[in-house]
């Protein structure tokens, strides 16, 4: 049932090349979920998210200092090794410092036809932010028009918004199904769905997902979906191997709060009578924030507690990407809040490859602890 999604994720480059051949369209690789994909769809460009390949590599040391997170170096390695050489465009929306380096080094050493750094504001909670962002988006629209030679009308923007909104709506629907006890899908299966969403044409993905949701109504939950209900919190996370291990040893990941998961698709663009660009700006300012944009108050904490409550999570695994400062700055507060709410937390530090054996021991011990609490 999930083969197609898994395939897209595993063979993302083949998928992208095939799309290009089929449609003759342009492909743009992006870092960071604050990139306004609505605008790219409006210009008939396919945006694909750049993630790492989880392999050790020896090509980035000359470009990025080792103190920066393994993820940004893994991403840059993909570019330096030519794995994405089919891209016509490359862009980033301003969020954390580390990933910026993947963009600025890639752009210099493997230049593409079109590259763009969008100044996504950090103080998304300021009353001034939406107007500022709308202005920056207007500049971005002009740049994309110049690149593609197309005019991005309000009508096209509304179409782009519709593509993104439909996808987000279906993803929310799909995640809602996981509230059931047991959920009809495993966390690993869901991960394949959400990752493939970021790497493929959302129109195709939405058609597929709609069908899949239909089939799930009658599905007998797989055995691994009946495990201890867990929430995963983190930065970016596409460690399929890790998810599979957790679900092999008795856990089931029922929801998440990380940027390759719900933070990516959570809220919609609301067309409230204003211009499409204003609506897009509002959506990106109001969405569940990345820690770099979660201030002065931490809204993430409330949001995480809500997810834990509504998906009835017994425990939470916090995945800390090694050296990731923004998350390290939030993790103590999140851990404290979850534990105060009766949701024990297991904290694991991730690199591009994970010591699955060592982590299994910790996860098993954590699950035992969670189950034991039930008995008393």
């Amino acid at each position, binding site marked *: 049932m999930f083969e197609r999604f898994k395939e897209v994720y595993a063979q993302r480059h083949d998928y992208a090349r095939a799309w290009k051949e089929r449609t003759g369209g342009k492909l743009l690789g992006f870092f960071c979920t604050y990139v306004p994909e609505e605008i790219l769809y409006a210009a008939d460009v396919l945006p694909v998210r750049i993630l790492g390949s989880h392999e050790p590599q020896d090509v980035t040391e000359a470009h990025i200092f080792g103190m920066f997170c393994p993820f940004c170096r893994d991403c840059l390695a993909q570019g330096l090794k030519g794995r994405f050489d089919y891209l016509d465009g490359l862009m980033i929306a301003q969020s954390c410092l580390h990933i910026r380096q993947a963009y600025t080094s890639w752009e210099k050493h493997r230049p593409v036809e079109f590259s763009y750094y969008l100044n996504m504001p950090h103080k998304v909670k300021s009353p001034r932010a939406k107007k500022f962002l709308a202005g920056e988006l207007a500049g971005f629209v002009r740049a994309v028009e110049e690149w593609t030679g197309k005019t991005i009308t309000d009508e096209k923007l509304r179409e782009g918004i519709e593509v993104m909104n439909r996808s987000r709506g279906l993803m929310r629907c799909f995640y809602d199904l996981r509230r059931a006890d047991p959920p009809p899908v495993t966390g690993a299966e869901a991960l394949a769905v959400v990752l493939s969403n970021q790497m493929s044409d959302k129109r195709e993905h939405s058609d597929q997902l709609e069908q899949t949701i239909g089939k799930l109504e009658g599905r007998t939950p797989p055995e691994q979906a009946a495990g201890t209900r867990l929430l995963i919190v983190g930065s970016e996370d596409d460690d399929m191997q890790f998810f599979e291990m957790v679900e092999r040893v008795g856990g089931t990941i029922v929801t998440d709060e990380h940027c390759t998961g719900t933070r990516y698709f959570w809220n919609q663009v609301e067309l409230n009578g204003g211009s499409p660009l204003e609506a897009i700006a509002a959506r990106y300012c109001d969405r569940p924030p990345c820690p770099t944009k979660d201030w002065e108050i931490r809204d993430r904490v409330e949001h995480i507690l809500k997810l834990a409550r509504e998906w009835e999570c017994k425990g939470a695994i916090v995945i800390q990407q090694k050296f990731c400062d923004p998350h390290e700055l939030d993790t103590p507060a999140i851990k404290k809040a979850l534990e105060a709410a009766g949701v024990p937390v297991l904290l694991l530090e991730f*690199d591009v490859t994970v010591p699955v054996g060592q982590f299994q021991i910790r996860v098993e011990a954590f699950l035992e602890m969670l189950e034991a609490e039930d008995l008393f």
Partner: protein
Amino acid sequence: MITAGIDMGARTIKALVLRDGEPLGKSLVLAGFDTEASAKEALQAALADACVERSDVSRIVATGAGRDDAPDKDATLTDVGCAVRGAARLFPGVRTVIDVGAEEGRAIRCDEAGKVVDFAINEKCAAGSGAFTEAMARALEVPIEDLGALSLQSTKTIPMNAQCAVFAESEVVSMIHGNVAKPDMARAVHDAIASRIVSMARKVGYSAPVVLVGGVARNVGFVDSLRRGLEVEALSIPEEPEFCSALGAALAAAEGATGGAR
């Protein structure tokens, strides 16, 4: 003219006596707690091996991490300078020198004349030194001198995290529990260290001929991994790679080197 070079390494002290450009005698001793005494011992043994007296030696240059502690010297020079001098003497025309010792790995780029242009030394969070192979040999319960040959029996590439030595060690433990064959694990270990070295070499930019020196050059498994990682036809390795820096120091002494501490 007779000169001598003494390499005060982290683990071992190497002394080499040179006459008119030709090595005459040498010795290697384990660096004891009293490094000055070990240095004296090494020099005495090298002189004996060369059949010369201390008074026959015109100048001595010391190198290595403990060079300032060498009791009997006229000047000091860094490992970088000495490794390149030694390598250029043994392999004229060398353009890249890779020196992997017990505690540090270095990649050095030089010009046609054998002058150092740029260098990199393994930074923190890097498993690029001999100490790492020793730890891995212990984990695998294989004598360190057998680790290289064992790894050559493998034809599998198992990716291992090469960023952090601590992470890598837990990966080995996982592999042991996962019943991975020992030759494959040994190879993975060597690939991991080589990867760190290759990463450094790319940082300074490397080109053939590449000379590999330092004690770890005796590890055939590491040599194979490094050659593959650098994507070069062959690596030039001296017969006694651990003496390259001492040779370089002795050559520098003959050139009249005056640098370093008093």
